[in-house]
């Protein structure tokens, strides 16, 4: 009896150990499962936080690594959760009873004295625990990868605080090219050009995505300054071109028609030519254009010979050509448009023959300087001389002979009225129109006193049809 009792006790202890071991395995698996789930969730959260902090606050990765300490509360949570889901010892015993085919003997062992059944009980085998953790493992690997990426990803990919440069390279390069062109053509002073270039460099470096309006405003301002300089230079060049044209025309006129002018007019013209030439271009420019010193001296003295006038005319032409070339370069640099270029070129065009004729016609009326001013005034000298913005003058009325009237489509009512009209005669003057509805009245011819009277009523053509139908009915 004592032996049986001892056997029972030993067997019971062995079974208890097996049950505890299996329960421990279940608990371990539960801990692992919950740990993996919680760690996966934390890794996703951690990765997000890391990215957010690096991007928003520029936090250092070393500091963010402290997030790994969260593993401690996570392990604690996993242990608590596993403990809560942990089956009771009785349930584990029931599992082992079922799996080992004990038919309730192992369960009964917990509550009854087994006696001889201990020896007859089937051997207790703990079943295999299988965790279908493929999905959980996949998620964990993804989370680990995500958190790794969040640490190693270059900060500029995620940075939100750092200035994002504003791309103004194209506009700035264009502006730099324009300043360079102005510098090259000596249109802008060196100091001013340097100042503009310095400002452009500052705009380039300060260009920020945070405040693009500021950058664009500064760039616009600089562009305005360049445009204004260009416009001033263009106007000056247009004026010079015009003067050169006038000077060239005058020199040609003096060369070709010099003999027809009196000596006084000739002297004044020479002086005017000298003034125009000097105001339009310097002596160095003329020298560069191949004009001899002798001719230059003669120009200053106002005693140019016919040959020298020809040379001057050629030199002025060359200067005008150079001016045109400079304008073309400005056009190529995009500083001026085609319209401005044409305007400048047209300003230099002058009719030398017409000028000679004008001078000859109006000599003595005013000085040559005034004549040149009048000549250059638009509209002077006939319908084909100058632009349409000539001053308005009033004289006799324009003859209608040969004039063409504007054609217009008449309305149906007017057209119907014209069909009933009668041709009375033709006149070159304006037709006299009687007042509509005017009536004339008087006594009947041959009638005795009080014998009656008659009224003549003018009927408009458009009413004639109605009046006719009225009398037909009565």
């Amino acid at each position, binding site marked *: 009896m004592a032996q049986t009792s001892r056997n029972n006790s030993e067997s019971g202890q062995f079974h208890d150990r097996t049950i505890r071991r299996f329960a421990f395995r*279940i608990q371990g*698996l*539960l801990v692992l*499962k919950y740990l993996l789930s919680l760690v996966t969730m934390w890794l996703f959260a951690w990765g997000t936080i890391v990215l957010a902090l690096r991007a928003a606050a520029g936090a250092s990765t070393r500091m963010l690594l402290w997030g790994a300490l969260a593993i401690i509360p996570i392990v604690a949570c996993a242990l608590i959760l596993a403990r809560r*889901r942990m*089956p009771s010892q*009785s*349930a*584990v*015993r*029931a*599992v082992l*009873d*079922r*799996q080992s085919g*004990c*038919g*309730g*003997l192992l*369960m*009964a062992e*917990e*509550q*009854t*004295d*087994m*006696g*001889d*059944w201990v020896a*007859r009980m089937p051997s207790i*085998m*703990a*079943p*295999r*625990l*299988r*965790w*279908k*953790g493929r*999905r*959980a493992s996949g998620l964990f690997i993804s989370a680990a990868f995500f958190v790794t990426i969040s640490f190693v990803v270059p900060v500029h990919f995620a940075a939100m605080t750092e200035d994002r440069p504003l791309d103004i390279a194209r506009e700035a390069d264009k502006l730099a090219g324009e300043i360079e062109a102005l510098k090259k053509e000596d249109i802008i002073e060196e100091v001013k050009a340097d100042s503009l270039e310095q400002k452009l460099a500052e705009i380039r470096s300060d260009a920020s995505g945070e405040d693009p309006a500021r950058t664009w405003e500064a760039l616009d301002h600089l562009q305005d300054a360049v445009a204004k300089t260009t416009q001033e230079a263009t106007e000056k060049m247009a004026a010079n071109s015009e003067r050169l044209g006038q000077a060239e025309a005058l020199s040609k006129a003096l060369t070709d028609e010099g003999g027809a002018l009196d000596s006084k007019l000739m002297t004044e013209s020479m002086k005017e030519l000298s003034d125009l030439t000097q105001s339009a271009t310097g002596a160095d420019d003329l020298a560069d254009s191949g004009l001899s010193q002798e001719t230059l001296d003669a120009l200053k003295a106002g005693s140019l010979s016919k040959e020298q006038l020809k040379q001057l005319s050629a030199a002025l032409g060359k200067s005008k050509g150079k001016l045109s070339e400079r304008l073309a370069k400005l056009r190529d640099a995009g500083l001026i448009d085609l319209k401005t270029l044409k305007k400048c070129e047209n300003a230099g065009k002058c009719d030398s023959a017409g000028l000679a004729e004008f001078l000859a016609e109006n000599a003595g009326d005013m000085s040559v300087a005034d004549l040149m001013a009048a000549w250059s005034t638009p509209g002077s000298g006939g319908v084909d001389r100058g632009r349409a913005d000539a001053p308005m003058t009033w004289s006799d009325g324009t003859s209608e002979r040969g004039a063409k009237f504007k054609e217009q489509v008449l309305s149906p009512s007017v057209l119907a009225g014209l069909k009933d009209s009668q041709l009375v005669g033709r006149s070159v003057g304006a037709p006299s129109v009687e007042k509509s509805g005017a009536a004339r009245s008087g006594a009947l011819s041959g009638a005795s006193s009080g014998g009656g009277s008659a009224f003549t009523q003018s009927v408009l053509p458009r009413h004639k049809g109605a009046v006719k139908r009225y009398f037909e009915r009565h």
Partner: protein
Amino acid sequence: MQEPTREILLQPEELRPAVELALKTLEQLDTILLGRSDLHRMVLVAILSRGHILLEGLPGVGKTALVKALGQILNLEFKRVQFTPDLMPGDILGTHILEDGTDGKREMSFHPGPIFTNLLLADEINRASPKTQSALLEAMQEQNVTLLGTTRPLPDPFFVLASQNPIELEGTYPLPEAQLDRFLFKLTVNNVEVETLDRIISTRRRGESPQPSWTLGAAELQQVFAVMDRVYLPRLVSRYISRLVAATHSNAVEATEAVRQYVVYGASPRAAIAIAEAARGYALLAGRPTVGFEDVKAVASGVLNHRLVLSYKARFDRVDAFAVIDSVLSELDETGLKLPADIAIEARKE
């Protein structure tokens, strides 16, 4: 403080004679009626559990022969009542007749009906009127008969083995739920296989069953009952039975989808008691002093199938009670071990 005395499990030497007697009985049944071992086992389980059995099957499949053979083997008094629509309660329970006494006085004397027997075969029980069917209620549950205010006990043991025909239902009275609930098992008697049929025709002239070569004495039967009473039902198994019966109710926490969809009324507490008792009998036949989960699973279908009231939807979807019970048995974890869905326990391969 003294430890509470632990119950002593039925020892092998105590269990063995009862198991041998039960198995001998089973063997005799198998010898007399061929090809129905499973049915015989379940019938014997019901007898060991002192329960009543409702046998359902087509005519000629051997229902009456089974009951007769059982009566012969168990050496119990056996009576058969053919239930018909004009059968009256008195025809079963017995009646009082005015008789002349020995002293010359006339007095009412009780003439017991066929119910006063150990084994009553209620043949085609669904053909009797509800009134007559109800006459069996008290007898089956209380094992008493009360007539004219006098309660008379029925012989011990008392079993009702009723049969009913699933076809030719015209003019029949389906048993009410209260009546059905009193049967421990409702067992379906199916046709036998070709080989069995061949053996029956070749060995049995006119289909007559042989006489049993061994019978169980009344004392031996009581001995088996006494052992049955000591078969141990572990707490977790009883818990499983309770959960199983509760899960047949559509509003239960552990009810399966099939139960929620098709069951109108689940099994009664009497069903839980019946499962526990039947599982004990099943364990005894398996030679074990304790009830295991497998014993419960083996008897659950027979106990529950006539106790579930299914909806019209079930009839429409051609779902029977067995399918619903199978869903509960397969989905309800016996041990109550609530592990997460992704952790599974698998048998270790040898």
